[in-house]
């Protein structure tokens, strides 16, 4: 193949040694045959076409909300997922061999776990050094002899592979407890499948969908429901602060199982339950993304606030399956990897097919001797997965660092694993307008699927390829700036479906209590942001339109309203009330200052946090609007009235989009009702408080003349009023319009009516729910008797009991439906 248009643009001039394997180019820079269809389909790989594709990929990633959390990142929690346009292509023949080897390795590791957490014959026979197991914090003593349904320890396992200069793929690391990346791999395919649609067809890329169907099917086989029970599955996540939280939510949606956190689950009588708005619902299978020891503060790790007390005991009764099984993290430790070729012979009667990197534990005399002898050319890693220290490349260390390592190695050799480094292969990455070679690591996945004839092992045709951010010392870690690639295995036929098939099963079943809580607060914060924005808009409009009649009096009232709403920064408190410059400063602060707890920024941050916690229930667009709102409030506007007004309008439009999407994308079930309950309740409370406050303000002669207009404006009822009355507002009709007019969607009566209707449609919530319904009924009756004629302090007083009853309503709902998200305390 000498077509110049297809020639790879990889170059080796930038510090990548010649001695490494190039994935795309063979001898003399010639394209490897299995890359030809891709390069032909992408041709020409020129900056314009690639920039276009890059834009589309970025748009899709953003639209789907694909993010990754970098711990301690000052830029904020969520980063867009970095995805390169150029996939990694493997030949179908090579893949077949890798897949067979990976399935064998999964089978072997499963058997090793069954032994180490069972009879421990491997330890008794000396095949695995006892100190390597017993000294590993990943070995969970409490999990020994805990039954594992269908003998499936590893529902899903990942292997990190690196290809050396000789062209051989070697296993660098095993990911055995809750391997991440399958969701990202799926998302990568979704994006690249769109951007390089023709190339995917041309190459005949094998689809990923069936693999996920198999994962879901495997979960089904683990459930042991009692007669008459529907099996229930959950995906247990550490929560929105975890680095791969996006993936947890994504997989939950994709597999059709609810995303939960530890506090959503409870163990009663050795059985695991999910707290839902309809009470406790038994859980049969937990797909976990929580590390082993965090899963249970009672028996595993007492300081874990993320787990479920009693989960180990529940697993011991056999009434719940945990996938992967508790304790599987043990095999992520490098210390016993050395023994695997021998164990393959002992346990499977087969040679180990997939080569692994040359790693050995320094805890034995021989291992330490070899490590000391070859010290200069080695890499040292922590022997146990619980130790998160970075690998140390001896050649890169300063003198004092070398000495420290050497001393540590001599005093506590058992903590180290030595490794002969693998010079990783490179694959072309589109960077700065051209293809540049970068070192890659390929993570592949195997699922275990129990069947009548034992466990079938199945590899995902593809994987998650990650590349080093720069040349030089290749460090491949998403936490340290690496990027990802789609991974293509040909052989799927020309009409391969690029869309991943959605696994069957829905999020059906009762709504988890925490989600109900999250949705309720999502509604409240969204509405709260609306209220603040309308107040700030009132100020900004008057700052821009300085000629407005009564403008000064209105600004005076608005400024006091801002102070009442805790929106007036303390440092401006002594300044003149209506000085435009100071007002602008205050509006600016109320918009952007995260330190003002009731300001727009802080409220939108809370909104975004609520949204994260219910993310698997939100349509991607809805999530994106919330994330945009949060980001917009973080970018400070210029300090001019018109710039401020423009920013406020942008946020108001975003809020409107949010309302629209809530209406359009959420099924009319309990989830929607709780969200709307949050909005209605917040609006009702704000409206009552506003009427009370302005009624009292009306007694001030300076404010009196403008109060009614402001009330209609801030109550968002001005245009409705004009439509009805076509006249300047008068007290009686205006108050009636705001409070008791059922046709005004902003009126108090409307909110109460909607709340009553929603409560009636919720599942029974016991005495607290009945009390909530009674409260609303009483409120509506009281409101019906209210005849608002005056706007003064006396009228404000008469509304007091209603305001108090509304505040009580929120607590009643919490008691009736939301699990108190308390974390257990250790005693």
């Amino acid at each position: 193949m000498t077509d110049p248009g297809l020639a790879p643009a990889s170059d080796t001039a930038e510090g990548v040694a010649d001695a490494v394997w190039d994935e795309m180019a063979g001898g003399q820079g010639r394209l490897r045959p299995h890359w030809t269809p891709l390069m032909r389909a992408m041709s020409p790989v020129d900056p314009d076409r690639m920039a276009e594709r890059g834009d589309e990929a970025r748009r899709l990633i953003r639209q789907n909300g694909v993010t990754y959390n970098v711990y301690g990142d000052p830029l904020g929690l969520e980063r867009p997922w970095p995805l390169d346009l150029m996939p990694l292509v493997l030949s179908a023949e090579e893949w077949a061999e890798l897949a067979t080897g990976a399935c064998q390795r999964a089978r072997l590791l499963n058997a090793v776990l069954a032994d180490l957490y069972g009879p421990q014959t491997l330890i008794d026979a000396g095949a695995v050094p006892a100190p390597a197991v017993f000294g590993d914090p990943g070995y969970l003593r409490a999990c020994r002899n805990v039954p594992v349904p269908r003998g499936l320890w590893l529902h899903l396992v990942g292997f990190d592979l690196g290809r050396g200069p000789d062209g051989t793929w070697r296993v660098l690391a095993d990911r055995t407890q809750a391997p991440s990346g399958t969701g990202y791999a799926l998302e990568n395919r979704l994006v690249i499948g769109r951007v390089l649609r023709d190339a995917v067809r041309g190459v005949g890329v094998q689809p990923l969908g069936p693999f996920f169907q198999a994962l879901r099917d495997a979960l089904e086989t683990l459930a042991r429901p009692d007669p008459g029970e529907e099996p229930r599955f959950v995906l247990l996540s550490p929560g929105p602060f975890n680095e791969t939280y996006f993936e947890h939510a994504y997989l939950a949606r994709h597999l059709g199982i609810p995303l939960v956190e530890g506090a959503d689950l409870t163990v009663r009588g050795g059985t695991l339950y999910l707290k839902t708005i309809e009470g406790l619902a038994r859980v049969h299978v937990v797909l976990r993304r929580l590390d082993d020891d965090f899963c249970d503060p009672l028996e595993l790790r007492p300081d874990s606030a993320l787990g479920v007390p009693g989960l180990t005991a529940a697993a011991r009764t056999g009434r719940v399956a945990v996938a992967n099984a508790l304790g599987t993290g043990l095999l992520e430790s490098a210390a016993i990897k050395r023994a695997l070729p021998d164990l393959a012979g002992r346990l499977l009667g087969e040679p180990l097919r997939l080569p692994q990197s040359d790693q050995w534990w320094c805890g034995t005399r021989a291992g330490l001797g070899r490590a000391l002898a070859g010290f200069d050319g080695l890499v040292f890693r922590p022997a146990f997965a619980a130790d998160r220290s970075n690998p140390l490349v001896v050649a890169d260390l300063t003198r004092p660092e070398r000495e420290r390592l050497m001393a540590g190695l001599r005093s506590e050799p058992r903590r180290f694993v030595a490794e002969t480094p693998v010079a990783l292969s490179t694959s072309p990455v589109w960077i700065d307008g051209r293809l540049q070679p970068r070192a890659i690591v390929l993570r592949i996945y195997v699922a275990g699927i129990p069947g009548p004839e034992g466990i079938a092992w199945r590899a995902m045709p593809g994987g998650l390829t990650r590349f080093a951010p720069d040349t030089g010392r290749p460090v491949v870690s998403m936490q340290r700036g690496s990027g990802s690639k789609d991974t293509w295995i040909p052989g799927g036929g020309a009409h391969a479906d690029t869309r991943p098939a959605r696994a069957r099963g829905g999020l059906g079943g009762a709504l988890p209590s925490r989600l109900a809580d999250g949705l309720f607060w999502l509604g409240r914060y969204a509405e709260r942001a609306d209220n603040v924005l309308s107040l700030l808009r009132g100020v900004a409009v008057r700052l821009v339109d300085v000629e407005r009649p009564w403008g000064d009096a209105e600004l005076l009232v608005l400024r006091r309203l801002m102070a009442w709403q805790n929106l007036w920064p303390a440092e401006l408190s002594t300044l003149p009330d209506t000085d435009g410059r100071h007002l602008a400063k205050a509006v600016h602060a109320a918009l952007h200052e995260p330190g003002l707890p009731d300001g727009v920024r802080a409220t939108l941050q809370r909104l975004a946090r609520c949204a994260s916690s219910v993310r698997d229930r939100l349509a991607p667009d809805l999530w994106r609007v919330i994330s945009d709102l949060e980001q917009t409030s973080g970018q400070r506007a210029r300090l001019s009235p018109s710039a401020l007004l423009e920013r406020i309008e942008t946020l108001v439009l975003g809020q409107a989009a949010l309302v629209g999407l809530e209406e359009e994308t959420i099924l009319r079930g309990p989830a929607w009702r709780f969200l709307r309950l949050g909005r209605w309740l917040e609006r009702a409370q704000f409206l009552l408080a506003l009427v009370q406050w302005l009624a009292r303000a009306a007694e001030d002669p300076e404010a009196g003349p403008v109060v009614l207009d402001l009330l209609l404006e801030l109550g968002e009822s001005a245009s409705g009023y004009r439509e009805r009355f076509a006249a300047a507002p008068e007290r009686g009709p205006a108050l009636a319009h705001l409070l008791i007019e059922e046709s005004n969607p902003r009126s108090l009566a409307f909110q109460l009516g909607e709340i009553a209707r929603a409560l009636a449609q919720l599942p029974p919530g016991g005495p607290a729910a009945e009390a909530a319904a009674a409260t609303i009924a009483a409120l509506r009756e009281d409101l019906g008797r209210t005849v608002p004629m005056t706007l003064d302090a006396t009228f404000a007083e008469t509304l007091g009991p209603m305001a108090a009853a509304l505040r009580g309503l929120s607590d009643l709902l919490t008691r009736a439906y939301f699990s108190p998200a308390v974390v257990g305390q250790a005693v």
Partner: protein
Amino acid sequence: MIAVRYRIRHLTRYEYAVPVALAHHLVHLWPPSGPRQTVHAAEMRIDPAPAWMEERTDGFGNVGRLLSIEAPHTQLEIAVALDVTVHPGPDATRDPARTPAWETVRDRLREAPDAGSRAACAFALPSTVIPEPAFCADYARPSFPPGRPVGEAARDLAHRIHADFAFDAAATTVSTPPETVLRDRRGVCQDFAHVMIACLRSMGVAGRYVSGYLRTRPPPGQPRLAGADASHAWAGVWCGDAGWLDLDPTNDMPAGPDHVVLAIGRDYHDVSPTRGVILGGGRHGLTIAVDVEPCDA
């Protein structure tokens, strides 16, 4: 020495400021029978009654009871009554001078080539409460001159801890790290046991944590021992084929007929008499009362 039969009462009471909605507990309050002691009868009363209870045996042979209480409660009482005989010997290690040199034991534990050392090696390795034993190495070293029998080294260590550390129940809590105990040189039996174990492990030999009881009233003419009115704890050292030598650093004595064993683990975390995770409860108080009476007294 002759066998002594004890009647033991161990009362644990949690009191909570606000009701606990759900409680899960794991208790190690069931003593083992073995060559050293015979359990004639054991009885456990739990109030309020648990909704669920299950026994499990851990890898060290201890019986743990898991229990959950699902009804709201402001007080939990666990009362145990035991009838136990402690036998003299067969303590193969009564003569510490006849144990192997500590280096020999250390080297054997490192690769654990035989069944005996494989069973013991877990006790030479880091554990939950003592994740990095090396902090004790400087303190431990003077007790470990080259070639010294491991039993003698451990006796010397227990003696030094007893001399250097003050018994002070106000200085520590159940969760005070051994590092702090070593720095401040004060604490209670649990702390001294942990320091001793960390010292042993820092030298590469195996140390175990023994939770148990001490005879409350001394025999006539003998002084009352520290730690006698609460649960007690001491430490053991592995002496190769000679087995375990258990020493009580709090009282600078070998564990003998005054010591009743409740559970054995790598540290307190493995065998804590009671621990739990509760929902609700607010502030809580814990009262423990232990009474260990010889039957014939």
